[in-house]
């Protein structure tokens, strides 16, 4: 933390110098830059620009606020199986305040936070995890005797930018699920008008936090956002469109019961209630835990955790979506799948390889 002498020694150095100090080679550094450039959906020609920025830029000061949270996003940040370069980059940001990991407690902790707000006004990054309860004067979340709704106003209001990590901080999330007993809201609603990047997900994907910070350091601006305040590089595409099981959807091959033949073979989870067709996030490519896996790869449908109010809109989680958007008025997944298979079949016939597919399709029809 800020109080350690090691950290103080590093405070004036650039990110690349700090990485070198931690034993990272030039090669490690450049592969990190390549990974982040890819996550940002930038062409590979930008790798050198990202590298140049990280060689040049000083570490920004960062404060991490926790309100109505489960620390799941903190865990996602801290629980990598080995220290990754991404983790180190976040670690070597000057994290001046983070309740779960900081050494100071009580009024000393609160003093570090207020020192940043006062001395680094307009120059620090605020990260918020958890929703802000507005009900009953804000009594449902108090830190240091102060209501979250007051703290968030002061800290985010004076920050250079705020990252709302996780669906709770972005849109209210679980505490805001019906009947929203505490009047929970996301940061944008709690502090209207301040620059906020929403990084929803339950939990957030750490690569997306890192990429947002790196974008900021490289270009000096926040990444382009969609209408829900989410960076397009991470939330611009539907899960369904990039899903590793998409071919099974198109072929009409669905899991119909947990543990059935289709489930064992890794077929499409749409019939089991997968919300991939209505959810926008880069899970299929970035995944979790250093690209190890993500829910669909593990055999469970997407629950739509990156979408506003998903706890109400996407539940019950095991109910099949009545009608996936973008597929017209077909009433069942079978029709959608078979219809798409027919279209795909026609396209493949045109390429002269139709026979193989039509054989497969016939079998599929016989099976039904």
């Amino acid at each position, binding site marked *: 933390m800020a109080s350690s002498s090691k950290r103080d020694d590093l405070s004036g150095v650039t990110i690349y110098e700090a990485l070198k100090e931690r034993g990272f080679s030039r090669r490690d550094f450049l592969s990190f830059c390549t990974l982040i450039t890819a996550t940002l959906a930038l062409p590979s020609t930008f790798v050198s620009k990202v590298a140049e920025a990280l060689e040049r830029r000083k570490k920004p000061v960062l404060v991490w606020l926790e309100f109505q949270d489960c620390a799941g996003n903190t865990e996602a940040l801290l629980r990598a199986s080995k220290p990754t370069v991404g983790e180190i980059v976040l670690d070597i940001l000057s994290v001046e305040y983070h309740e779960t990991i900081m050494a100071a407690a009580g009024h000393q902790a609160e003093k570090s936070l207020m020192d940043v707000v006062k001395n680094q006004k307009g120059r620090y990054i605020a990260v918020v995890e958890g929703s802000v309860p507005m009900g009953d004067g804000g009594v449902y979340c108090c*830190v240091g*005797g102060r209501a979250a709704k007051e703290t968030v106003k002061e800290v985010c209001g004076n920050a250079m930018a705020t990252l709302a990590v996780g669906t709770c901080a972005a849109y209210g999330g679980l505490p805001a699920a019906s009947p929203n007993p505490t009047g929970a809201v996301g940061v944008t609603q709690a502090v209207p008008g301040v620059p906020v990047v929403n990084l929803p997900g339950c939990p957030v994907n750490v690569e997306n936090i890192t990429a947002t910070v790196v974008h900021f350091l490289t270009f000096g601006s926040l990444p382009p956002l969609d209408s829900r305040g989410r960076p397009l590089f991470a939330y611009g595409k539907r899960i369904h469109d990039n899903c590793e099981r998409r071919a099974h959807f198109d072929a009409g091959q669905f899991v119909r019961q947990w543990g059935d033949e289709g489930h064992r073979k890794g077929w499409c989870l749409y019939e089991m209630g997968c919300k991939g067709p209505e959810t926008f996030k880069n899970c299929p490519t970035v995944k979790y835990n250093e690209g190890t896996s993500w829910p669909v790869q593990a055999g469970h449908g997407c629950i739509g955790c990156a979408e506003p109010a998903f706890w109400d809109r996407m*539940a019950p989680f095991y109910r099949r979506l009545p009608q996936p958007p973008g597929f017209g008025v077909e009433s069942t997944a079978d029709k959608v799948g078979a219809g798409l298979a027919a279209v795909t079949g026609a396209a493949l016939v045109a390429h002269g390889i139709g026979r193989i597919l039509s054989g497969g399709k016939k079998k599929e029809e016989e099976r039904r």
Partner: protein
Amino acid sequence: MAKIAIDPITRIEGHLRIEAKIEGGKVVDAWASSTMFRGIELILEGRDPRDAWAFAQRI
């Protein structure tokens, strides 16, 4: 007699406030408060039981 309050308690998951009454250099009484409430029990009411794990595991 003095009363001290440590809030927030850090390096834990969740929000905690500890107040302690000190007499002659010793803690003679103490109070712990959980300073955050979400009402997950209320949110769970009336939902599909198969979804309960997803809500409850976020505690």
